[in-house]
Structures are given as C-alpha cells and as structure tokens.
C-alpha cells in the first residue's frame, strides 16, 4: 500500500512548516492546519507542520460535544479550548509536540483511513527510533469517555503498553489531514481536570488510566527537547517514507 500511496497522488517532494518557535494561540493553530489541508486539496504538495502551543490548550474532536468541557476548570487553569477539524476525543496540549500532515488523498485502498495511519506511522516510528525509542502501532483499549489519551482511537504509537503518540484524521475531497501529538513531558494537570465526566466513577477510571497509560519521552529517559524531536521526525519521514523536504514554508497569513 505504501508504494501505491507514492504511485498515486502523493509526491516525494514535501514541504515543511517549522512552527516550533511561533507558539500560536490554539485557534490560529487549527486555522493554519485547515489552510494547509485546503491548499493540498487544491493541488499543492504534501506538507508537514510541527508546532507547540502558546499556553495549555484542550483540543476537542470535530464533533465532540461542547458539554464535555469543564469551562470553569479551563478558566482556572488558563487552558484555551479549541476544536480540531480532525476526529477523536479531547486532548490536552502543552507538554507535547504536535504535528499536522496534509497530503493529497491517495486513490484506492491507499487512501483508506488505516492505510494512511499505517504509512505515516512508519515515519514516526523511524523518528522515535532515532531517539532510542522502540514504538509500535497499537489500537488503544482504554475506557470510553471524553479524553483522547484515555479512550479508543484510530492508530496510536505505543511503547510497550503505554501510549506515546495519539493521532486523528479528517478525509476531505482531495486531501487528508492527520494530527498527532507526541508527549514530551507531563503537565501538572491532565484531561480529567478539565473535562466533564458522566459520573465521579467514570472520572476516576479515566484518571487511573491517564495515570498509567500515557508515557512521555522525558519518562523514557531520551531526548525530549522539541527541536531534537522535530529534527528526528523530519529525518524519520525522509528516511522511512522516502521523501525529501524540498522547501521550508512560512505560513502565508503570518
């Protein structure tokens, strides 16, 4: 399938948007990614964007109910709430490095959700390997609920039984956008502090799960500086996915 992704519509020449230093607000981050998806859907080449967040942000999945958010807790903890164009459940950003990949939608089976996840996972696994981390694809089997890292998602990257990287996709006419979040370090609070749960019991289950299921690069004892991790992602993509980053972009609206 990976060969067919290349053979169909995804060129080997990619663009890179290095936004590690910009720390845009959450709303701007999502607008930037949607702009890249639109760009690709209208004929531009594939693009990888890497970024961090100006302050902690809770991103909700495309159709996740607003009622899942504890707005008072978000205000108290200075957490911005944004909505992703991609699916999935809520994810707390701030201790992570976020990536967005926008590619022309490959035709046929290569454009299937699982095929795109698997293909990009190969690049990410190669990137993590450069950092000394042996990650693998895993379907997460956490409890259902509003928190991403505590619930079932598309394709996760795990180290042993612990989740290091979650991802989500949106498929539009002509383009696919995949978001992913690689955990660098823990914040002093987690999703269970800023989400509403159906019952205290459900919150406790999610809290226990979040306490042991996700793992950060810092915990794994490998390099977790954003610049180092970003460089590993770029190299991992180039090596494993057989592509080159021919240009480095500044977003047009900045």
């Amino acid at each position, binding site marked *: 399938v990976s060969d067919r992704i290349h053979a169909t519509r995804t060129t080997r020449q990619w663009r890179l948007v290095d936004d590690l230093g910009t720390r845009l607000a959450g709303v701007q981050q999502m607008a930037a990614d949607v702009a890249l998806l639109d760009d690709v859907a209208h004929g531009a080449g594939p693009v990888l964007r890497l970024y961090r967040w100006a302050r902690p942000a809770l991103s909700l*999945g*495309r*159709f996740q109910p607003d009622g899942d958010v504890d707005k008072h807790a978000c205000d108290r903890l200075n957490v911005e709430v944004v909505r992703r*164009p*991609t*699916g*999935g459940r809520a994810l707390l950003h701030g201790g992570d490095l976020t990536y967005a990949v926008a590619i022309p939608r490959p035709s*046929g*089976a290569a454009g*299937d*959700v*699982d095929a795109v*996840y698997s293909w990009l996972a190969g690049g990410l696994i190669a990137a993590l390997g450069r950092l000394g981390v042996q990650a693998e694809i895993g379907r997460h089997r956490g409890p259902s609920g509003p928190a991403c890292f505590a619930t*079932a*998602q*598309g*394709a996760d990257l795990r180290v042993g039984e612990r989740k290091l990287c979650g991802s*989500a*996709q*949106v*498929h*539009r*006419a002509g383009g696919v956008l995949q978001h992913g979040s690689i955990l660098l370090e823990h914040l002093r609070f987690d999703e269970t502090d800023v989400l509403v749960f159906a019952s205290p019991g459900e919150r406790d289950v999610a809290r226990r799960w979040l306490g042991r299921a996700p793992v950060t690069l810092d915990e794994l004892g490998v390099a977790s500086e954003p610049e180092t991790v970003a460089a590993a992602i770029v190299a991992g993509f180039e090596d494993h996915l057989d592509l080159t980053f021919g240009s480095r972009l500044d977003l047009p609206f900045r």
Partner: protein
Amino acid sequence: MELPNELRYSAEHEWVRVDGARTQVGITDFAQDALGDIVYVQLPEVGSTVSAAGPCCEIESTKAVSDVYAPVSGTIVEINGALADAPEQVNADPYGTGWLFVIEMTDLSELDTLMDAAAYRALVDEE
C-alpha cells in the same frame, strides 16, 4: 461484503436506491467496514442542494472524520434523523436502517454514471 443487486454505486462508496425522481443514499458495506465504528453522522439540511460528487455530509468513526459525497445532483428532501441517536446503524445495517438521506434528483441521466453491483465489486476488488 454485501452488495444488493437492486442498488447502484458510486466510486466514492455510496449506494443509491432509486424510486422515481427520488433516490435514497447511504454508504456501502465496504465503506462502513473501512471507517470502523461510526460514532456520529452530521447529515445535510433538508432543502439544501447538492451536486454530484460534491461533499454533502460528514461521518465520524473512532478512526477519522470523512466526507460523504452526493452520488447525484438535486435537493435533500429527507434525512435519517434516527442516526442522531443511533449512528451505529450505519455499521449494523448500511443498506437498511443505516440509510443517510434522500435526494430529489434534478438530472436522472446522472444515474448512468453510477455502477451496478458487479462493476462496484470489481472496483473494490481492485483496491
């Protein structure tokens, strides 16, 4: 993979069930299986107009959010409101209770661009 012979199919994996100038639309067994567990369906508004091959609603599964494309042009005259509470019907019964919407067609000749079950099966087998 179930493919009822009485339906016609689009390359984007929608099916249509024609009844005069009206056609009921859903996604195929192949599509629901590829999407995985469907958790939300955002249907088009009744009265809105859609264009053949244009995106007209969205389906979210546990894996991704995906556009659904209108197989023919026309006006949305009915939607499957039951999916608001039971989106999993798209997985359980894609050609029955999991239908999505009904289009009043503006150009019946567009049906000729759709595939019969055998042609659609060949397309899927190629993938």
